[in-house]
């Protein structure tokens, strides 16, 4: 039995006097991150990611700790949902895994996957938040003077807190209590925007992940086998490219109902064509190279030739397109939400933006400006990163230097 990895060109023996080489992709990522634009983009995405993970601790109507009648309790922790817990556990697992240096990337990925699979059922079994949310409960208690001491979240309003006890705060412009103002229904805009980071982050990553996987499989098979499979695959790609993604998305969401997971799946299922084209081109270029012939001659299964030998050498264009893909997925989600096809109970930037053109043609500038700015900055950040990745990976530009 031949070891799969032994034939990969990356594993070729390195001469002792040669400088240590780094992979093309690793080098490109390093080059990218040295640019100011990509750095700024990454910082913003980290901010959004942080908000997504710690949303309940940043904006919550329930105090983190409260002292009533002489003993302390934590309503905030009691009201955490299973999703909150899973996100927190996964975040800390990723941080710990990133700090351990001895494991390979594949091992880390596997351990992360195992943690996710273990924690999900546990969280849904054991985390039982109260089914009824009375957001004004602690504000009322504070007014009655029953709270002796309390620690609140930085923004003491939950995303779905409609401020029923403070009707005078509805539709108020940015002020000291509500930093970015409030919505028509009374929700605090900043709090809703922080909670909406979750949708923005997850839709980008998951839908692009689906698109990349489909693109690699379809494009790889097309580029490697050519002939009839290639012709059929190209027709398939043409079909999907001839339907504007937004049209298909609208049709499917209108018929299947509003569901974040369906939305992610559809964005992934309709945007893979560009990735497939890239991968097909790379595979067409690489399929006749010596290391591929060697792998075939060694009797390796097709799966191994395709995905362990050719793919690592042809993956670089995909990194660029994935970065732009995340940006366009976020745009699709916000557009759908704007058109009234998004989620109803969960806040999303696009859905907030839609409310800015209120009843009777009034225009509420703070609801229009801030959520739109958040969408813009996130899309801009991914585009900046994609742009500098493309520059870093472009061999023609390296020649000029």
């Amino acid at each position, binding site marked *: 039995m031949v070891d799969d990895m032994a034939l990969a060109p990356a594993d070729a023996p390195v001469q002792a006097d040669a400088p240590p080489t780094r992979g093309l992709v690793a080098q490109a990522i390093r080059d990218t991150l040295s640019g100011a634009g990509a750095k700024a983009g990454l910082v913003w995405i980290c901010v959004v990611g942080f908000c997504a993970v710690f949303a309940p601790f940043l904006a919550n109507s329930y105090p983190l700790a409260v002292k009533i009648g002489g003993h302390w309790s934590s309503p905030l922790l009691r009201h955490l949902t299973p999703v909150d817990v899973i996100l927190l556990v996964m975040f800390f697992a990723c941080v710990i895994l990133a700090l351990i240096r001895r494991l390979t990337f594949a091992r880390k990925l596997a351990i992360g996957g195992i943690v996710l699979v273990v924690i999900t059922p546990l969280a849904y079994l054991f985390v039982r938040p109260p089914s009824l949310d009375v957001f004004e409960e602690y504000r009322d208690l504070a007014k009655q003077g029953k709270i002796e001491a309390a620690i609140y979240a930085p923004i003491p309003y939950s995303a779905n807190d409609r401020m029923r006890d403070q009707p005078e705060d509805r539709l108020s412009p940015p002020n000291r209590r509500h930093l970015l103002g409030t919505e028509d229904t009374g929700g605090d805009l900043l709090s809703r925007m922080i909670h909406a980071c979750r949708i923005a982050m997850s839709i980008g990553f998951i839908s692009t992940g689906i698109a990349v996987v489909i693109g690699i499989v379809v494009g790889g098979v097309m580029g490697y086998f050519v002939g009839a499979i290639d012709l059929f695959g190209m027709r398939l790609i043409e079909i999907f490219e001839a339907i504007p993604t937004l049209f298909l998305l609208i049709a499917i969401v209108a018929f299947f109902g509003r569901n974040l997971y369906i939305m992610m799946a559809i964005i992934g299922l309709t945007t893979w064509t560009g990735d497939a084209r890239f991968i097909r081109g790379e595979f067409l270029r690489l399929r006749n190279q010596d290391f591929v012939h060697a792998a075939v001659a060694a009797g390796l299964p097709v799966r191994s030739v395709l995905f362990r030998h050719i793919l690592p050498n042809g993956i670089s264009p995909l990194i660029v397109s994935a970065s732009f893909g995340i*940006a366009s997925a976020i745009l699709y989600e916000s557009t759908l939400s704007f058109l009234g096809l998004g989620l109803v109970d969960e806040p999303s930037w696009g859905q907030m933006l839609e409310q800015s053109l209120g009843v009777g043609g009034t225009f509420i500038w703070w609801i229009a400006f801030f959520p739109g700015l958040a969408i813009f900055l996130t899309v801009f950040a991914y585009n900046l990163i994609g742009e500098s990745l493309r520059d870093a990976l472009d061999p023609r530009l390296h020649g000029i230097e």
Partner: protein
Amino acid sequence: MTTYIIRRLLLFFPTLLGITIVVFAVMALSPGGVGASLLTREGGMDPRVRKEVEAYYNKRYGLDKPLPVQYLRWLNEVSPVGTKEAGTGFPQAWGFGFKMPDLGESLVRHRPVIDLMKESLPITLLLNFISIPLVYLIAIVTGITAAKHRGKIADVGLGSVLLAMWSVPQIWAGVLLIGFLGSNQYLKIFPVNGLHDVQSDGMTFLPHIIHGAFERGWLLDSLWHLVLPVFCLSYVSFAFLSKLQRSSMLENIGLDYVRTARSKGLGEKTVLYQHVFRNSLIPLITISASILPSLLSGAVIVESIFGINGMGKLIVDGALAHDRELVLSDALVIGGLGLISYLLADICYVIADPRVSYD
């Protein structure tokens, strides 16, 4: 070249078939399907009446037949060749032959789909045909300017602005434009609803002055209504194309033929505009195919924001109303337009670059 075009035209059929199958499958597999969801709309109906209505719809549109039969039935209706009633179409005596394609009748609006299309398609095409030349013209000028000053502050600044512009969501731009330039609270400069003023029917065509007062006329009124939608529709493509034009110019400037042209003593202007510029247009022509589909989906957003009754609005309304016939016809028309634009781009590509050959 002719063989290539014929081959491509023949490939239209399987592709259009595929598009409509995908869309039909989506609708058929959705919970509730098409027949049932139509009826839930008219709730509060007497059960007996409901049954009658259901039977009527089933008979009329074949909604109780197996799905493949339903699809084939629709396909037979829209195709110019198929079964028909004797006495119409080409071989008049036969039950099979050439006939007028029939896009069916909207299940919700109870009007022939072809009429709805005739009303809305020209509006969307008008928006696009104003946008495309405008976008190309400005993008080429900006791209050349950036390339001429490459590496300098003008180029870097323009590059960042274009990338930012490319990232601005159309929904945000539209909402801000309406809010700040079209609402009563701020500046009310532009009209924001529809393509014509309510009184535009009574206007003269050209602007003129009656009794010392300026009358803007139908043409100017329409143009006035078009400013914001066209801007909103085109700025994304503009940013994208400018960047493309810049990089294409730069790529060409580094090539050997430019050095040759310079070394034989041609002026910088001649080199730039007669040699580099012409060659740098090739990527812009290739990309023109994907511009039309992206402008069409841009139209969905722009028409929804600005209340224009074009294809985009027809699509959203049709999908929201679960209108099977309308959605299928939309898919057919949008898909067909996309395919035609891809073919046109390929032909333009050959004309622009003699090295390219498809035979």
